[in-house]
């Protein structure tokens, strides 16, 4: 039987930003398969030039409406590294809590609002408000807890205010920390219910051997700073990030692409899991085993499972950190900052993968050069290279344009792309 398939998605829905999918199958063979980023470019690296160090984190947070906390954290870390600033222990805990809050709100937004409708046969979460209000309330409780954590420690979820060069400006009062701990503990049964829901998702059987890049945890599952590692065995220090990313400009889109040992690599929850799964909380490991997630996993669709596994880890770690902060009592959270000429890199694992900010400063603490490498920029080439293999795998009898379009869309969504970010 002659199998011809056409997929043309203009401005894919349920992803952040604007991208197009184009696939052509003729006689069962893929003759064309493309992922094109068409988002308008914003030139943040140019706007950062000349900015004072106190402004860099505030401006670079605006690169992304979902992972603004991650951008702010990478930014202040790059600046602190350039100035040789060491932040207090309490500030380190607060920053990790802000990071955890962002991971929770972003992963739950993606799992329930952006990804779940595909598995439940709905165009969006909106029809589910009336059809499955309990599931929606579950999603809102989980996502809300993440947002309230961000509000408490970063001052705001989108575009944080308290994460500043030198530490964290405000230590939340003890009562608020305890209330957050109680709220997070109450979400543990909700996490179990979410696991039951996701266990019922039919994950497409598709694998393509991929190189995975992430931070390398030493004692803890990594989120802020440290060594860089790839599953193909490349290891570099944080400041050598360029050797891990090798960004290059492509003709067709406004996002750059990246490569390492192969034509493309992937970052994100699956990369973190594959490279650091031994450091997960025991409950998170248990859930991974129950949902069939085993390292090394080369099925991009399993990133959804990895997200939930990370949420379980992060929830337990948040409870631990909140208790440690309460025990610390009235602790110092900021140190005095003296700018100096120099350069620094900050690497942070944001929900979609590893993010780098790199600044060069003059004597007055103003930026001379800035470079930001975004997770989706690193994933774009991998999405592009997944597409033909996916189309080939499913170009079988019974496949229709509509079904292949859904599969391709689901593939792109499994990376949870943040496209505005990638063309910062």
């Amino acid at each position: 039987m002659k199998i011809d398939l056409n997929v043309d998605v203009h401005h894919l829905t349920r992803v952040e930003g604007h991208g197009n999918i184009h696939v052509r199958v003729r006689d069962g063979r893929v003759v064309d398969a493309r992922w094109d980023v068409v988002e308008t470019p914003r030139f943040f690296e140019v706007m950062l030039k000349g900015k004072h160090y106190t402004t860099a984190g505030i401006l670079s947070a605006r690169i992304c409406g979902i992972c603004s906390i991650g951008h702010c954290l990478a930014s202040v870390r790059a600046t602190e590294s350039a100035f040789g600033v060491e932040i207090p222990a309490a500030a380190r805990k607060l920053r990790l809590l802000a990071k955890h809050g962002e991971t929770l709100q972003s992963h739950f937004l993606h799992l329930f609002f952006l990804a779940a409708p595909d598995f439940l046969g709905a165009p969006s979460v909106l029809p589910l408000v009336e059809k499955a209000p309990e599931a929606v309330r579950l999603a809102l409780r989980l996502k809300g807890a993440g947002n309230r954590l961000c509000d408490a420690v970063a001052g705001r979820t989108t575009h944080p205010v308290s994460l500043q060069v030198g530490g964290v400006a405000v230590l939340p009062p003890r009562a608020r920390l305890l209330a957050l701990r109680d709220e997070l503990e109450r979400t543990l049964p909700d996490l179990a219910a979410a696991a039951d829901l996701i266990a019922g998702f039919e994950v497409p059987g598709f694998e393509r051997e991929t190189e995975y890049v992430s931070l390398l945890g030493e004692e803890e599952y990594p989120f802020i700073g440290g060594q860089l590692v790839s599953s193909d065995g490349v290891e570099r220090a944080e400041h050598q990030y360029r050797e891990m990313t090798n960004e290059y400009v492509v003709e067709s889109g406004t996002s750059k692409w990246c490569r390492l040992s192969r034509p493309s690599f992937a970052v994100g929850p699956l990369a973190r899991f594959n490279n650091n799964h031994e450091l997960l909380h025991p409950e998170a490991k248990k859930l991974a085993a129950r949902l069939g997630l085993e390292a090394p996993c080369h099925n991009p669709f399993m990133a959804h499972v990895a997200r939930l596994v990370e949420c379980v880890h992060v929830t337990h770690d948040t409870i631990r950190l909140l208790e440690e902060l309460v025990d610390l009592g009235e602790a110092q959270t900021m140190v005095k900052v003296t700018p100096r000429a120099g350069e620094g890199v900050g690497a942070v694992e944001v929900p979609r993968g590893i993010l780098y900010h790199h600044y060069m400063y003059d004597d007055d603490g103003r930026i001379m050069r800035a470079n930001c490498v975004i997770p989706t920029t690193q994933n774009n080439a991998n999405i592009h290279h997944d597409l033909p293999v996916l189309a080939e795998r499913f170009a079988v009898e019974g496949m229709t344009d509509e079904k292949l379009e859904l599969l391709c869309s689901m593939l792109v969504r499994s990376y949870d792309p943040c496209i505005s970010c990638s063309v910062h």
Partner: protein
Amino acid sequence: MKYLGIEPKRLRFAVFEFTGCEGCELQLANKEETLLAFLMAIDVIDFREVSSARNGEYDVALVDGAISRADEVERLREIRRRAKVLVALGSCACFGGVNRMKNACDLEEANREVYGDHPKETLPTRAIHEVVPVDLKIPGCPVSKAEVERIVQHLLFEVPYQFPVYPVCLECKQRFTVCLFDRGQLCLGPITRGGCDAPCPAGGLGCWGCRGQAAEANIDEFQSIARERGHSEREIAERMGFFGGFEEHS
């Protein structure tokens, strides 16, 4: 869903995004404690970031982001033709936002710096009202969801919405936030329109003016006091130019 015995009409909403971070439309999915009631009160017709459904006509178009490419101008004009009410959502849509800082650079040089030998199409950043007429502007970076809820209530009951005329300072006093301007930080609170509930000073960061100018703000006097307190001309100008909300004064 009745309110005081009255069934409000359900308005058909669509959400569109242009040059920006999409953080403002993300706020629509935040404030989880009232989100279900919010979604029951409106019909979401077209919202690419959260829904694959695209169902045609709408009453209210919420537009997030600034305009910086020719295809965006075309898309925006089409949205204007179809929308009864066009709302600029957030500081990028209202003022151009941080994207406006790009306009101070040589765009060809900027393109070379970022993209090398493969320059991408880009235009100077414009606010939505500089391209098509706008019916309502909701400023903020990001917008305050609580304020968006209040505005949507007013739209449903066809009552005009009055933005606060007072500055951010008033809300700091209401929250018992210690004045950061008095403690030596530059803060645009005295001249910036309130209504956000002043989250930045409460989190230890002086106001950056994302909501634009308060009514009857005495800009000249503010600048002279800020200078007296040791803030440089450059610092004040950069702060006021950050979101584009004080365009006529920077």
